[in-house]
Structure formats: C-alpha cells, structure tokens
C-alpha cells in the first residue's frame, strides 16, 4: 500500500482526471480523500493505492503531468501522521449499553447520537484503531458505517506545501510559436 499526497486545482473535473489516471495505470485506489486547503483555490488529496514503489512512482510522475495537479508526492516512506474518521451506527439495548460504553471509552471514541435501539459512535485515529473498534463492535450488530478514508501528513518540519503562485507561462510562450 502506498500513500500519495497531491495538491490540485480546486475546480470541477480534477477528481475525475486523477481517478481516471489511476484507472488507466491499472492501479486500484484503496481510499482517496479531497478537501480544501487554507487557500480555497487549491485542494489537497490523500491517495492510498494498492501498488508497489514503482507503481507509486509512475502514479506520482503521471499525476504531476496533469495541468491541474500542482504537486504529487509519494510519502509512503516518510514519518507520517495518518487519520481516518468513522461514524458507526451500532444496535444497543438497555442490557448491552453499559458494556458498549466501556468499549467506547477504551477506544477513546465518542457517542454522538443516542436512540432507543441504537447509538452512533464517532471515532477517529489511525486506520488500525478504527478497524480494531469495528471488530469489537461487530458482535453488537453494526447497522451502518461511514468512513472518510485516510488523510495523511508528514510529521514535524517535513513540509509539503503547494508552490506559490508565480507568473508562469508567459516566459515560456516564446517557444510555442509555429517555428520552433
């Protein structure tokens, strides 16, 4: 499994270009999350892909060839902070509710909705933590689940920032006239 982060133009069609590229390279995407950045013109993607290092290089380099992709970077081998968020609706009656609450406390999850027959649990953290909670909730009856997919960030001073706006283009334009 390889993790890539990409900064892309925040406009229609870009997600399609990115996912279509992975499809063309026959790379299966495990999760892809997109969200705006502090600059609303730029969105950040975290792409988790079923591929090896060579496939990730190809995906990274091919992504960067897309006009709307500002940066693509394979961060798999770097020190990462990874987060996934899940909402899990689990059936809960009067008898098992205390037991359920214990488990939720252990996993440092939160109850965000309470109904007579069910609870919605919100949990965030590394993927295996959520998988672990899910495992112990299963016997109670998981009715519904929604997960965001992973977001990743390199730790500490290892910064991955979008390039600053520059007046690109005009200085290159002299090379595109009909006689090269």
């Amino acid at each position, binding site marked *: 499994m390889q993790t890539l982060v990409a900064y892309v*133009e925040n406009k229609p069609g870009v997600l*399609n270009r990115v996912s*279509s590229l992975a499809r063309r390279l026959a790379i299966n995407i495990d999760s892809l999350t997109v969200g705006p950045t502090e600059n609303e013109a730029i969105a950040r993607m975290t792409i988790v892909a079923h591929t090896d290092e060579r496939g990730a290089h190809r995906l990274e380099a091919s992504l*960067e*060839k897309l*006009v709307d992709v500002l940066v693509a970077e394979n961060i798999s081998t770097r020190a990462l902070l990874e987060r996934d968020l899940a909402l899990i609706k689990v059936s809960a009656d009067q008898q098992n509710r205390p037991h359920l609450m214990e488990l939720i406390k252990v996993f440092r999850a939160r109850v965000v909705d309470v109904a007579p027959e069910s609870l919605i649990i919100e949990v965030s953290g590394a993927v295996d933590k959520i998988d672990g909670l899910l495992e112990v909730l299963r016997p109670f009856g998981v009715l519904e689940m929604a997960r965001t997919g992973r977001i990743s960030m390199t730790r500490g001073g290892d910064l991955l920032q979008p*390039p600053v706006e520059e007046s*690109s283009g005009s200085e290159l334009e002299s090379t*595109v006239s009909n*006689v090269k």
Partner: protein
Amino acid sequence: MKLTGAEILCESLTRLGVREIFGYPGGAILPVYDALGKSKLHHVLVRHEQGATHMADGYARASGGIGVAMATSGPGATNMVTGIATAMLDSSPVVCITGQVSSKVLGSDAFQEIDITGITMPITKHNVVVTKAEDVARTLREAFLIANSGRPGPVLVDITKDAQQASAEFNWESSVPHLPPKRRRNNHDQAEFDRAIEMLNTAKRPIILAGHGIMVSGAMRAFEQFVRTGNYPVAMTLLGIGCFPADNALNLGMMGMHGEAWVNNAIQEADLLIAVGMRFDDRVTGDLRTYAKSARKIHIEIDRAEINKNVKVDAALVGDAREVLERLMPHIQTCDHSAWIRHVAELKGDSAVRDIQSLPDNGHLYAAHVINDIWKETRGEAIVVTDVGQHQMWEAQYYHHNRPRTLITSGGLGTMGFALPAAIGAKFAKPDSEVWVVVGDGGFQMTMSELATIVQEKINIKIAIINNGFLGMVRQWQEFFYDKRYVATPLVAPDFAALANAFGIRGERITKRAEVIPTIRSARESAETVLIDFRVEQEDSVYPMVAAGASLSDMIRRPNSPLVETATEP
C-alpha cells in the same frame, strides 16, 4: 475592442502564428466558420475529421510547430479521437478545436452533444471546455503553450456555441496564459549526474539508443557532438530516424522488432545503453527479462513518468535532451571504441547476402526495391510519410534519412490510414519540400477520400501504394504464428490508378522492376500529385523479425533463398 468569441478565436489563432486549419464545419462550430471567412486563416476542408487531426499531426511533425484541427460537436468531435490518440502516443503538438452545444443545454443530450472532453481525457495532454467568450483568447494561448512545451502532446479546446456567439472585450496583451503553478523539481541530482559521467567514460561497449526526443528538443547538433566525442555507435528507434544522419559511419540503423540484426545483437552485447529521448517501447526491447542483460543503462528523458517504467536504469537524467547533452559534453572524454565498433561491423555477417537488395531481377517486384529506388531518385531528401505495416518497416530499412523530420510515421499507436492525410499536413508545413506517401493497399483504403482534399487544395505530393493484395503485416504474423491461415487478410482493392483518375489525379500502375525508376522520375517531374500503384510480391515478409514478447536476440531471419521462399502466388 469588442469581438465575438468566434472572432476572438480566429484573431488569437492568427496571432499565435497559425496559417492553416484542417477542419470540417457543422452546426455547433458555424459561428467560428463565419469568422474564419473574414480572417486571413486558410481553412483546408477535409473529407473526414480523422483526416483533419492526422493533417494537423503531419503539419506539426514536419514543422516542429503546432498543427490545428477543427470540427463540430458530436460526430465531428468523436471522429477526431483516433487522430488525437495518434498524436498523444507520438508526443505530437496538435491543438484540436471543437464546437459544442450551447452552455445552457449542456448535459441535456441536445442534438450532436457529446462529452468530448470526457472521451478524450486519457488521450490528450490537456483538454478544456470554454463557455465564455472572454475566456477564448487566454485558453487558446494556454492550449498552445501546453501542446508544445515539455513533452509535447495534443490539447483539445471545446467551445460552446454561445461562447462563440457572445461578444467580449478582446485584449491580447491581458489575455496571458494563467496555468496553475507547478512545483519545480530538482531534475539534476549531482550524484546521479556524476554516476552517468563515470559510466560514459568507462564503458567498453557503449551504444546509444536515439529517439524522437532528440528531434523534439532540437538537440541534433548537440547529439552529433556528443556522439563524435564519445565515439558511440548509434541505434535508432523508428521515430528517432532522421535525428542523426543515416550516412554517418556511427549510425547503425534501426533497432527493435524489425531492426537490423546487427543492431539488436549489438544492444544485447553492449555494456552501456545510453537512451536519449526514447521510452523503451515493447517493440524496441522485446522480452524485458532478456533485454541487454550485460549493460548498465543511462536514460536521458524529459518525462519523469518514463523513468524505470519498462526498463530499470542505473542513472536517470530527467530533462530536455539538448540541455542534458550540453551539460554532459564538457565531461565526456574522447573515447576510442574502435575494437567494439569493428566488432559491431562484424556482427553484420551475412546480412548483406541475405538482403533483398542483393537479389537479381527475377521478374518479381519487391516492396523493398520500390522504396529503395524512391530513396535513390529523391537522393534521400524527400519527406516520406508512411502508413502502418510492412511498407512502414521497409521504409525504415530502405529509405535512408539524413535530416530530421523527414520520416513521418505513426509509431506508438500504429494508426492505419495515417499516411495520406498526414502527408497533406506535411506538405502545408513544408510547401517547398518533396513529399512522398508510402502506404499499403489496406491503410490507403481507410482514408483515401482525402484524395479529394488534395485536388481541392491543388497540392503536389507523390503517392506510392505498396499493393500486395493483403493486409501484409497481419498476413506475415499469420504465416509465422498461425500456420498460414490467412483469415481476413486477403484484400480486394479498387483499381487505384483508375480511382485516382476519377478524382482528377494522374494514376499509374507498375508491375515490373524495370518500370519503377522511369515512373518515379516521371512522377517527380510532374507539378501535380501522382499516384503510383506498385503491384508488389504478395507474400513477402519483413525481416528480421523479433516475435512479440520474444528476446531481442531471437530473430527470425530472411531465408537465404528468398526467390523460392516468397515467389508464390495465392
């Protein structure tokens, strides 16, 4: 100054240096055609939109500039798909402009509405929909910038009808390209660079694999210096042909599936491959597990995505071929590889004896002879545009190109039907050059309607149909790998000379070797297009051949007595 989107489009094209547009009108692009009529741009009316894209592609490849194709929405746009993909696979800078239904009805399945940007997403370098007249000039400048920068490729600009009709303020100076900022990558890792220098200066059996990128970056002079200093033998890819003179002693010829036997053997024996502007296509490498096992590999390539894609290399120098070669030059020691070069010459062995050129006239007409005679008669100075198949490989083997951009052929996609329209485009790019089409009877029948375009435009090209009555390359595979079961490869064709006459073009039919040169001469003397139908040997094959997926060392060679082997009638 207020102009309509359509007028802005024409004005922008003019300012970008465009002279000719290859296109076909229709409802959703009519406002543009109306503006075209008032502009100085010359519109070439094609007979099928695929032809328009191939013409733009041929124009781009012959000139090094950008070719422009135009079509209406829906079927006009979808007919362009094969031509766009052809340009994509061969990194050819083509800008396609399509009309689109009005933005108000987008997504409603309106008449002749199709999502052409969706369709062409994987086969364009970039594509974009324009829905506002004020965006036309900037978008077009961006399209031209993208098409011919870095690794070139096709760009499609889809303009809605209302954007063509609406008026907007036209200000060229302020319509500057505004592309997303890209992170600048450090492509010149010093350690990698030093490693490459070390390999270049210590190799005993080096060989250069020269590709299309040398031409694209205009690196011919730097490359020639590099080769001369290092004394490296040069093998060419199909699209690399012309980037280094065929008559240079260090030029070995073409590599790969139908490359020369000694070239492939030299690659297999080399201790260093220096790949410049090529991408280790499967037609070049054969079986990767057995490819150049004893060689270290340096890859000079502008596209980072090509590095280690097919062949794992020891040093990757990412960048423009000319820039990288010029950076390497001061560090290259003058090397003496004469022992190795002598050895490569010895590898030629009996190739000359096996060569079909050595055959005496046995009453049969061979394609290789026809092509070699065209080479001799044109003194190797013509622009030759080929289609795809056996004749294409014979052209690569028997027409010796000394100058860049004189062989125009569909390499990556292998698009039959490419030759005739691409030659028309090439002729517009180089009106003073002699242009020859070398095409099979199969591929010619795919796009022969463009003969009418030739007549309408009054252009002068020479068309050599290598007519063997078969889809020859497929037949050859059936002969070698399917026990001569010729399913769907025998091909009925019209009388091409009579067909040419019907279009108002002079047509000739040649069946004997003695008639070849006089007919070529007479065609060359004509100021008009001439079509020559060469009825060649029906079951001749291209040799040598590396079967698909076989090792490069494992070549099927021309039988020693081809007279017996190939002189059969079906």
